[in-house]
């Protein structure tokens, strides 16, 4: 399978929502060390809202992403949730009017999402945020055209990025104040991204 369509996107939402059940507490705990301890609860609610959203029967891929973006944006105003909605909005623009898209476009799409998220949130690559995971996955998907190959590569790349950044200091948010103390800790956004990529690869 070298294309993805609405069914694949719906499937990803369902798998992610199911994965969040087990991840919620772990992500909250990771966030509690650096921030306010809500990453897991928030993501579970947001991804649950996506999974519960009704995609119109005649929707194209762009409209489906747009519905998801609105569902996410309605469900939260948190940093990560808002950035996630921003990414979905980017996907919606990129796939507007199409019923499917080639998997080779996934990497460039993620790259665009990374850029809009950077513009929106003001963080830079290297700050140890979800952006660094996204960047690594975008690069890993370059030239990949098979669905399961893409999922495996994405999961591996997100994990490698997580491992790599664990040893670095956090450069945004409150955690910045005690940056050195964040060395050895996972960024909750990166952790969430890696775990969800893993869930998609496994399923």
């Amino acid at each position, binding site marked *: 399978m070298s294309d993805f369509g609405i069914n694949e996107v719906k499937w990803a939402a369902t798998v992610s929502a199911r994965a969040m059940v087990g991840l919620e507490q772990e992500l*909250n705990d990771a966030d509690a060390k650096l921030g*306010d*301890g*809500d990453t897991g609860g928030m993501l579970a609610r947001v991804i649950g809202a996506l999974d519960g959203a009704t995609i119109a029967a005649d929707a194209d891929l762009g409209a489906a992403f747009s519905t998801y973006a609105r569902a996410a*944006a309605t469900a939260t*105003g*948190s*940093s990560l949730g808002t950035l996630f909605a921003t990414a979905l909005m980017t996907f919606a623009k990129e796939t507007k009017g199409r019923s499917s898209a080639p998997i080779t476009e996934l990497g460039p799409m993620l790259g665009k999402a990374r850029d809009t998220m950077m513009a929106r*949130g003001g963080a830079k690559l290297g700050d140890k945020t979800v952006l660094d995971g996204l960047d690594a996955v975008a690069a890993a998907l370059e030239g990949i055209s098979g669905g399961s190959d893409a999922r495996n590569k994405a999961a591996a790349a997100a994990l490698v990025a997580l491992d790599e950044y664990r040893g670095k200091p956090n450069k945004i948010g*409150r955690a910045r104040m005690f940056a050195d103390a964040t060395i050895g800790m996972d960024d909750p956004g990166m952790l969430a991204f890696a775990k969800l990529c893993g869930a998609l690869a496994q399923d």
Partner: protein
Amino acid sequence: MKKLMNAPADFVDQALDGLTLANPSLVRDGENGRVIRRAEGARKGKVGIASGGGSGHLPLFTGYVGKGLLDTCSIGNVFEGPNVGSCMDAIKLAHGGRGVLRLYGNYGGDRMNFDMAGEMLEDEIRTTTVLGTDDIASAAPEESQKRRGVAGIIYAYKIAGAKAETDADLDEVTEIAARAVSATRTIGVSLAPCQVPGSAKPTFTIGDDEIEMGMGIHGEPGIWRNKLKPADEIADEMLDRLLAEAPKNAGSEVSILVNGLGATPLEELFILYRRAAEKLGKSGLRIVQPLVGNYVTSMEMAGASISLCFLDDELKTLLAAPAYCPFWRVG
């Protein structure tokens, strides 16, 4: 941690219903009912002031809607920024024809959503932004624009709100709000955590005999954690830290807010205030309009913050101008 609530998912909406039922000067509005506005609506010809933030901090944010204060306030889930739709609603409902100041605390999600809302409305409504950045423990002085907004934001509400009532224009209201923020410093101590409704655990853990200096209002880690000390020592350290960062051009008058985070009794806030007032006097500062109470909370978190607002003549006059909301009344 036990809560008098129904389903956790209903926590925010039911609290907002109670807030507006009990206070007819406040009305729920906006697509998802996540905006609180003045009952009488935006006044034509007045610059609007829209704020917003996460739930769980009453009286902040929604409680400060009223004459001489905010026009509207968008409100998110507990400890999450308001969503973009509510921010748009808050801006639209605050608009009286002369533009809207977006005045809220410097948190990532809040900023992104207010920014997007402003962009979406930019053809219709002129907006400006001032961010509350009073928490001195949240970034070094060199990066003061990165600091978070905590209890001190109510000074900016009061001062900008009073300015807007004089029919000043958007630039003037924006300038004075920015001036109020840059005149205000806050630091907090925390003794016990709170718990987000529906969450399995408190926001943090802390020993039965410990205190943390500089902790954020959502439980973000602070400057140090240690055994609890006498209140006077704590007040002294808080004041020392605040005074060390007094604005360069600070005059001799200052307003002080000794704020309870939720579970700390008024008695303890007054014990802190007593020492703080003594110390300010010894530093040659004169206290104007002191505030002691639960103005900005984090649900059942225990602890307190102290804010200083260094006043110039205009700030002082605006702080004293009449204002009314259910939780703060001046004049």
